[in-house]
């Protein structure tokens, strides 16, 4: 009589997410994304309880190496690591001093020599996180590299959408604003598209990437047309310095043409969800009355999901090091 098959979780765990690092959504299959979303659910419950602590990562060291200024993402990763019991260290590298030359590689080698168990990196240059990941012995989590990817943001957005809407597949999702310079947009296009959503990008032609349709999205330069019937409206932050670059004439004009107002939102589906990765420019890309509408806005919830999602990523990526059965 053949032996009973071993439980899949125990024996084949590593097959559910066979990646050493999380550098981007590119390269992840739908089952891998869904696995991470499922893993995050348990942490939402923990985070809502009184004792927000789990010791399974106790003794491990997490370094948050942020080469670009960040408040919320850094805080989110720090809280996530601490709630799992890790020793969390933050390194703020002033972009001016650690920008050029061998210093980036040297910094990676230095960090590696301190024997961290996971490194979370944000850098202003596309591809920089991968460059560092190639030089270190521990898992690396990309917390945003240039315009390239911000995978945990896309995962937390997908988690938020799935919890609010019950699914991602089949939804019409409009990603609106400065898509050209946005790593959030790129990761979301990949993640939501992989999960079967109908993704649109909407923005002024100067802020849409060339041939973005080749990423499987429909592009709109008319905001109203792009919002028509959308189930989710995801607004992107407009960097103030884009005005100087001549991408848009003024904040006033941008708000008039591409700002999300209650009137505009009426074009989307009646129960459309409003999202924003933060920090918001109120009165520019989004009107306060929309951002603060508790029935429509999922913005605070995105932040909450962020912590849970990052806990899940930290847990999964360190399983092999911790000798978790099957990993």
């Amino acid at each position, binding site marked *: 009589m053949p032996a009973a098959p071993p439980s899949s979780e125990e024996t084949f765990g590593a097959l559910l997410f066979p990646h050493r690092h999380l550098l981007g959504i590119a390269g992840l299959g739908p089952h891998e994304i869904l696995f991470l979303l499922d893993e995050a659910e348990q942490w939402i419950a923990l985070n809502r309880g009184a004792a927000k602590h789990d010791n399974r990562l106790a003794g491990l060291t997490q370094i948050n190496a942020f080469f670009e200024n960040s408040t919320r993402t850094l805080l989110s990763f720090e809280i996530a690591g601490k709630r799992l019991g890790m020793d969390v260290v933050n390194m703020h590298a002033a972009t001016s001093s650690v920008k050029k030359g*061998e210093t980036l590689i040297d910094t990676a080698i230095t960090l590696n020599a301190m024997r961290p168990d996971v490194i979370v990196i944000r850098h202003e240059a*596309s*591809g*920089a996180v991968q*460059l560092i990941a190639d030089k270190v012995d521990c898992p690396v989590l990309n917390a945003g590299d240039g*315009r390239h990817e911000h995978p945990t943001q896309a995962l937390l957005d997908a988690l938020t959408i799935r919890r609010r809407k019950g699914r991602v597949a089949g939804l019409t999702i409009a990603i609106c604003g400065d898509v050209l310079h946005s790593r959030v947009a790129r990761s979301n296009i990949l993640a939501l598209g992989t999960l079967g959503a109908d993704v649109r990008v909407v923005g002024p032609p100067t802020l849409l990437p*060339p041939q973005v349709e*080749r*990423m499987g999205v429909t592009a709109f330069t008319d905001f109203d047309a792009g919002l028509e019937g959308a189930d989710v409206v995801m607004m992107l932050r407009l960097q103030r310095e884009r005005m100087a670059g001549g991408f848009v004439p003024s904040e006033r004009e941008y708000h008039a043409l591409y700002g999300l107002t209650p009137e505009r939102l009426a074009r989307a589906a009646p129960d459309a969800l409003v999202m924003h990765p933060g920090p918001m420019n109120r009165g520019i890309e989004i009107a306060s009355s929309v951002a603060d509408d508790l029935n429509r806005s999922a913005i605070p919830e995105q932040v909450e999901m962020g912590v849970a999602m990052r806990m899940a990523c930290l847990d999964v990526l360190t399983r092999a090091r911790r000798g978790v059965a099957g990993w």
Partner: protein
Amino acid sequence: MSALAILGGQVVAGGTVAPGGVLVRDGLIAGVGTFAVPDDAETIDAGGKLIAPGIIDVGVFAIDPAAFSAGGITRAVLMPDQSQPLDAVALIQHAVTAGKPDVWVHPLAAATQGLKGTDLAEIGLMARAGACGTATGRGWIADSGVMQRLLSYAGALGLVTISHAEDAGLAGSAVATNGEAATRMGLPAAPAEAEALAVARDLLLVEVTGAPLHFRQLTTARALDLVRDAKRRGLPVTCGITPAHLLLSDVAMGDFRTFTRLSPPLRSEDDRQACLRALADGTIDILCSGHDPRGPEAKRLPFVDAEPGMAGAETLLSLGLGLVRDGTIAMPRLFDLLSAAPAKRFGLPGGAIAVGAEADLILIDPEAPWRISSEKMVAQAGNTPFDGLPVQGRINHLIKGGVRL
């Protein structure tokens, strides 16, 4: 000086490849094909392999004799973009002697002082000191007035101007070409038309001045169409290309490989195909290496921060032979692109196997297989976008001015 007889090879000369040999005496070619071997002659058995003119590499950024010798390059036309731009007589004089005896360096005079694109440099005096032409450097001259004066002034001196064709405003700080690859990677990109826009202006100025102009590299369908049309109209314009833009498209940048960060950047597959057609139909005149060795301090960086350029000297010939094997071009045409056309365009000795010509010769085993390896390159740095590619064709002997090296 005694004679040297290379026997039993396949000689690339006069637009054909024919069995025979080459006789060299006093640094010059004294016989081609079949000839009586003098008693005092040293002989080399070519063993049925190719005997071809030494390569004249137009537009290198470094004097790298080891890489040039390995690549069969006997003369190198040096770009003025050195740590100190070649904008003064003394710098030209120094560059002229820098590679001897292995390789002869023919410097290009910086077109403008400090290569800043504003004030003309002393190109007349630099020409007397040995500059074989003048070049705008890595950048385009944005001011049309300056470019017009440069062309007319250099033209009157009998100098060819080499231009870098990328409209500065459109190119901006881009490191890639607009397209799916750059969009997915989140890299600042510019439309491919930045090249054609620059070419169109420069061609109009050639019409105005009648002065000869060479584009060191053209890499897009639109720009090559413009040059094809200009040649039809009899304008004194030529253009070149490196193997990179013939063999790689922008998808090669995947994983942010900084060895593929080039200037101009890699283009779309459609443009690559157009480059191959332009090579086959004669629109492209010169195949060059763009040799620009860059160490880790310039390349082990995020893609946007890395310096552009590739070490191309020692792979130029093998990649060119690959184009022959693919049927893109015929063997005699390859050595027209590598040797004859550069010699003719810049008035340099060598470049062809003919009686009376300078005896710069290479003996090539065109079938010898090897694999391009960044770590094994003899160049000053191993920044090749072709790392790992299996190729064929090796230099067996290199003869410079009748002397075996």
